[in-house]
């Protein structure tokens, strides 16, 4: 019984979280569009209504009551003219967002096994927003709806039907006729908007993307009867009906979902990873033994195909869209700009980009810091911006792009740029620099900002997410093989770029053979590989593409190796190269965590971040360039100002 209760509670939490996320996205879209379309108002209403219902089932009376109050306001918005932000809409959106915040907080408390907090303050705010709305919207009288009073909520048990029409004259009136045609089968039918026949301006939209009906079938009427009848109406080309359960839960969710504990998924991923590796080893073994049986070769091919397919499917299962992270940032910018009096336009680009579920936290932690810094330190107050000839409104652009197996995230602001002198001074005071200096490159600047101990606890405000500093957030990005870079220009703004492999489990690698040893580099760390010219052979530094590159040494045993292959590292690390006897471009390998035992044992000597199982079954360690640079520093091999 206990388990069953827990299951229901888990379901309540996860569904409510989904609904709150949808609610947030609607509200924030309304905020930036400057108006809430009636369709979105209906959707907002429906989400709040669903949250209310779910809270009532779970007997969370406080949540139910707040949702109920908000529902009253929202039901008023669904009819009538297009409400604009002037009509007290800002208040309403704010109060909706406060509701969503409150609800989310309570979900967190529920997760921790705590009780629900009192909602008096929120309820009062909702009531006062309602009062101000009624005053300001006195002139926007709600237009009557043909089938339902517009103030009526979408009836519970509604099925959402999505219809498409062939080209026809006056489609908005056609919609209304079609809706009427099934009245005999239904308790109620509602178009969105309710008085669709009065909206000729929607014709284009209806032709393009169809229209929606909420229908409550009478007892004994099957969904199929309803859709059949609708499909037979003139001009109707298609009728889509989601499953009734999904329709009741979530209009946007067209597919049913199941909840799987993350731990089970992880187990599955581990087994599939092993399957792919085993297959790969087996295929090598067969080849070495000279097995030429064509049937065996065929079966091996099929096994490979299936194994890879299974792994790809499983990695898709762990993917989520980045939208939720974007939304969180939009929220942050909105709240922070309101509090600081700065005017900020937040632009996000790259909605729908998929990321590995296991990385979301790392990404959002890092972005949170970067966006917060952009608002706090980047964007100037409006009067200052005007004085220096900028637009009063600052812009923060967050973009996500996926290419070549890498996810590139960028946070850009058009503010004042990072104050190098101040950063350098502070770094010197904190002992991060050996001597005072007054200029530095972008990459040096980044290393200072990312070094532990630069940002103090005093800097950590309530927007710092789970309380980790920028240093830790960036370190975690690097731990998952991500790279960070920075461009900043005084008076023009800054741009942080994060490049992260799109999945945690696969890494494009380069195999290094040095002496007796074999180790891996992430391909994203490598700029170029070439043979050393004789003259350059014994030099510590080499000139490559007109730039001087410094040599990085592997620890102890291999110090004196003087191999011919030079591996130049990508610029984000500074200018370094490594010597190797030879290199191999291996394809993607499965990335495994380095056992904690190894990092504990090696401590500061550790230069590895992960390991991979190579095609021959050997477990190879992946070199972490940052750690390697630090190890070289320790050994006195580099004279740099930045101490690690």
């Amino acid at each position: 019984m206990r388990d069953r209760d827990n299951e229901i509670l888990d379901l309540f939490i996860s569904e409510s979280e989904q609904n709150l996320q949808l609610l947030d996205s609607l509200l924030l879209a309304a905020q930036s569009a400057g108006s809430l379309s009636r369709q979105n108002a209906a959707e907002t209403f429906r989400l709040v209504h669903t949250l209310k219902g779910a809270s009532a089932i779970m007997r969370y009376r406080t949540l139910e009551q707040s949702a109920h109050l908000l529902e009253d306001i929202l039901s008023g918005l669904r009819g009538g003219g297009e409400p604009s932000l002037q009509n007290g809409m800002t208040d309403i959106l704010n109060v909706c967002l406060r509701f969503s915040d409150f609800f989310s907080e309570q979900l967190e408390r529920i997760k921790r096994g705590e009780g629900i907090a009192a909602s008096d303050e929120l309820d009062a705010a909702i009531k006062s927003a309602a009062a101000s709305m009624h005053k300001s919207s006195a002139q926007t009288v709600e237009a009557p709806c043909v089938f339902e009073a517009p103030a009526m909520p979408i009836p519970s048990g509604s099925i959402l039907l999505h219809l498409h029409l062939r080209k026809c004259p006056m489609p908005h009136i056609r919609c209304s006729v079609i809706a009427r045609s099934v009245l005999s089968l239904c308790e109620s039918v509602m178009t969105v908007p309710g008085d669709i026949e009065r909206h000729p301006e929607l014709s284009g939209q209806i032709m393009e993307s169809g229209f929606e009906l909420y229908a409550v079938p009478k007892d004994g009427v099957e969904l199929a009867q309803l859709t059949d009848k609708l499909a037979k109406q003139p001009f109707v080309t298609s009728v889509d009906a989601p499953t009734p359960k999904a329709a009741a839960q979530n209009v946007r969710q067209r597919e049913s979902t199941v909840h799987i504990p993350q731990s089970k998924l992880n187990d599955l991923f581990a087994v599939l990873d092993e399957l792919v590796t085993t297959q790969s080893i087996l295929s090598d073994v067969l080849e070495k033994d000279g097995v030429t049986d064509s049937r065996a070769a065929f079966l091996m091919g099929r096994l490979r195909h299936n194994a890879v397919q299974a792994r790809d499917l499983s990695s898709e299962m762990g993917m989520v869209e980045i939208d939720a992270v974007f939304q969180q940032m939009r929220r942050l910018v909105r709240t922070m700009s309101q509090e600081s009096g700065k005017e900020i336009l937040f632009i996000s680009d790259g909605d729908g980009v998929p990321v590995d579920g296991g990385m979301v936290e790392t990404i959002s932690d890092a972005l949170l810091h970067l966006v917060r810094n952009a608002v706090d330190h980047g964007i100037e107050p409006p009067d200052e911006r005007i004085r220096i000839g900028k637009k009063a409104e600052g812009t923060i652009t967050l973009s996500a792009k996926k290419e070549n197996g890498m996810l590139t995230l960028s946070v850009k602001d058009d503010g004042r740029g990072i104050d190098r002198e101040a950063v350098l001074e502070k770094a010197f005071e904190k002992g991060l620099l050996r001597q005072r200096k007054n200029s530095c490159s972008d990459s040096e600047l980044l290393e200072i900002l990312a070094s532990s101990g630069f940002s103090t606890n005093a800097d950590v405000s309530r927007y710092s997410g789970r309380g980790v500093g920028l240093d830790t957030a960036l370190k975690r990005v690097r731990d998952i093989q991500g790279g960070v870079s920075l461009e900043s220009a005084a008076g023009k703004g800054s741009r942080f770029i994060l490049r992260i492999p799109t999945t945690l489990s696969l890494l494009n690698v380069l195999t290094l053979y040095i002496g007796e040893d074999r180790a891996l580099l992430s391909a994203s760390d490598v700029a170029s590989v070439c043979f050393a010219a004789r003259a350059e052979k014994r030099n510590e530094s080499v000139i490559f593409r007109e730039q001087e590159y410094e040599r990085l040494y592997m620890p102890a045993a291999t110090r004196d190796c003087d191999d011919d292959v030079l591996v130049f590292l990508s610029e984000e690390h500074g200018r370094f190269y490594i010597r190797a006897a030879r290199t191999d471009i291996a394809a993607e390998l499965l990335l495994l965590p380095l056992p904690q035992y190894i990092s504990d044992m090696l401590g500061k000597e550790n230069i590895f971040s992960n390991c991979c199982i190579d095609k021959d079954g050997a477990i190879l360690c992946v070199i972490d360039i940052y750690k390697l640079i630090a190890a070289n520093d320790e050994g006195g091999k580099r004279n740099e100002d930045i101490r690690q």
Partner: protein
Amino acid sequence: MEQWDDKSKLTLRFTVGGRRYQVPVAEVERVLSLQRQAVSPIPFGLGRRVEGLFSFRGAALPLVRIAAASACQCGGDGDMTVVLLGEGAKRFGVIVDGVSSISDAQDTDAVSVCAETLYKGNAQAFSQEGSLNDAGSR
């Protein structure tokens, strides 16, 4: 079956270099046989205190010897017997000469070890340049 009821008292006995050891069964994930070539060394001389890494159920795990100095006969070219100890991120394999029995009686001659002390003895103490014989004995 009665004597198996209280698992907390059960110990797995094994020998390393002619010496008898016992470890609580609750800390043993499994005993496996591992081929020498299935163990990959840590490169660049960084694996001085670890035999190497081996793959178990899709994870890479470290393989260690229980005592640096004891004349362990195990290893060589053939298969090794490995006792997999600990849990989660702290799992590791210990090379043994052989596993003898599971018992709930205390063997007064055997050295009692547990996963945590072995882990600390090997991974942590060594990183501070300690050289422990019988690391992890109590």
